[in-house]
């Protein structure tokens, strides 16, 4: 038998400890969601799982929190999906079009367009949050999906990413395409888009997670409970835990789990694309 080196044991212990620190807090939420609210209120998180998950799940999905009775877990899940998909698709489509124009066309104002677009990388939405709110209000887009999604798209991360990728595509491709008589639109749809498949997938994962997890902007822009996303709803959910006789911990914790489940699953299952997109987008 091989002697296991002391050093290997230390390495694994550190990694296991790290993994536990990452997992245990979420397991704790799940455990709290599996017991009765009374149990949670008395003892908090424990070591034994209960059997209340189905009951709490039903409450979370179909019972509204808040005053208007419109924000059930189901409606918030629906809004989160629209925000996640709408943001990711919008950003990718608009970014690819702009990157294509910048990289593949002889344009007089290409440099200017480049700078106009890439300055947006410098200032995150958070620093111009109030004026953005005022403008969305002026345009009458409060409590709409457009108002939720479009201002978030106003930054050039995807454009920058696709620009980098298009520049690495061999020059010969476009020459060959031109010799074969392919116009710019045909070249884009038949050659460039299929070639970018992996990049699109990687970008989609990152953008979906980013859009889904938005908190500040949805908090400001949606006041109508029917428009709440899961992440936006969390604040209201935690606030209803205060000052009630028997706070609905089970329901709240299930909603937290539902709020993190889709992005977490996507990141785990499409790990290699995700890592590729993340580490290559920021170069």
């Amino acid at each position, binding site marked *: 038998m091989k002697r296991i080196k002391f050093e290997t044991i230390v390495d694994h212990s550190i990694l296991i400890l790290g993994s536990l620190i*990452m997992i245990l807090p979420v397991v704790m939420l799940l455990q709290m969601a599996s017991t009765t609210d009374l149990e949670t209120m008395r003892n908090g998180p424990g070591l034994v799982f209960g059997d209340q998950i189905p009951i709490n799940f039903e409450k979370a999905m179909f019972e509204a929190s808040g005053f208007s009775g419109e924000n059930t877990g189901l409606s918030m899940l629906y809004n989160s999906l629209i925000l996640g998909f709408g943001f990711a698709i919008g950003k990718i489509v608009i970014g690819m079009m*702009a990157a294509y124009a910048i990289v593949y066309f*002889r344009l007089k104002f290409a440099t200017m367009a480049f700078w106009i677009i890439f300055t947006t990388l410098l200032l995150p939405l958070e620093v*111009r949050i109030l004026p953005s*709110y005022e*403008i969305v209000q002026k345009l009458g887009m409060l409590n709409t999906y457009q108002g939720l999604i479009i201002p978030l798209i106003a930054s050039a991360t995807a454009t920058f990413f696709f620009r980098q990728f298009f520049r690495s595509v061999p020059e010969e491709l476009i020459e060959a395409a031109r010799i074969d008589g392919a116009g710019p*639109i045909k070249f884009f749809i038949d050659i460039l888009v299929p070639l970018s498949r992996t990049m699109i997938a990687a970008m989609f994962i990152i953008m979906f997670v980013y859009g889904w997890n938005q908190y500040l902007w949805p908090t400001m822009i949606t006041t109508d409970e029917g428009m709440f996303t899961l992440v936006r709803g969390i604040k209201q959910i935690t606030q209803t835990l205060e000052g009630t006789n028997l706070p609905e911990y089970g329901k709240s914790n299930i909603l937290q789990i539902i709020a993190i489940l889709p992005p977490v699953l996507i990141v785990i299952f499409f790990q290699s694309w995700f890592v590729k997109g993340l580490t290559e987008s920021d170069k």
Partner: protein
Amino acid sequence: MKRAGFSTRWLPILLLLPQLSIILIFFYWPAAHAVKSSFYLQDPFGFGETFVGMKNYTSLLKSSAYLRSAQFTVIFTLLVTILSLSLALLLAVKADKVIKGAKAYRTLLMWVYAVAPPVAGVIGLVLFDQTWGPLKDFFGLFGWDFRLGVNYFDTAFAMVVVSVWKQLPVNFIFFLSGLQSIPKSVREAALIDNRSASGRFWDVTFPLLAPTAFFLLIINITYALFDTFGIIDTVVKGEPSNNPMTLVYRVYVDGFRGNDLGGSSAQSVVLMVLVLALTVFQFRMVERRIHYT
């Protein structure tokens, strides 16, 4: 631009139009608006505004609450950045080294990337709960009477812990991919030259990781400044009162809750200048940094 680019006139303009119009309406307009309103004093009921020059800025600098936030933001940013970078580096080095279970560790250490900041904040609320919070109980063993939301220091401590937890995966992913891109030949040469593992790390691996680390430094500073909003908002339960808050959180509190548009705009402009300075610094450093490939 590609040498053999197309020369169609109207198509590129059409392609750029959606991106440019969104940016003009939702980026440049609000940014310009912020700069403009920072020089005005708005009537709280919406009846006009008066030009006050630099007054919004000077009153910011005189406000002890604002300076307190600025001070907290600096300390908070430093702590979050240093702690999450060093812990992630340790884990990445170990994950790069082990053979068994490497893939499982990688997954386990990175999935928290997808957890929304406010959910991380809620986890903090549970861990430090006044009645039964497990970490509160743990600190109680050492005689630390932890009071989240009441004691300034304790609340700040909880914010740092949660923010580091949430940021670890990003740093881990970048460090691991940086480590894996170090050529095998370099590692083997180092192995021959230097017998001690820690010596090899500091003399060979660490300098090779320096570009990644520098890039991550900027990413972490922006994270601590902006993306921790959701964590802070949930940890203080939307009621900041005397609790610590970052500058970004204050823009929201003063402007959105307090209805002080001019003051909040001035704060926005200060933040814009800060981010611009940070980016310029980053570009200058990137130019100067050594490439090893």
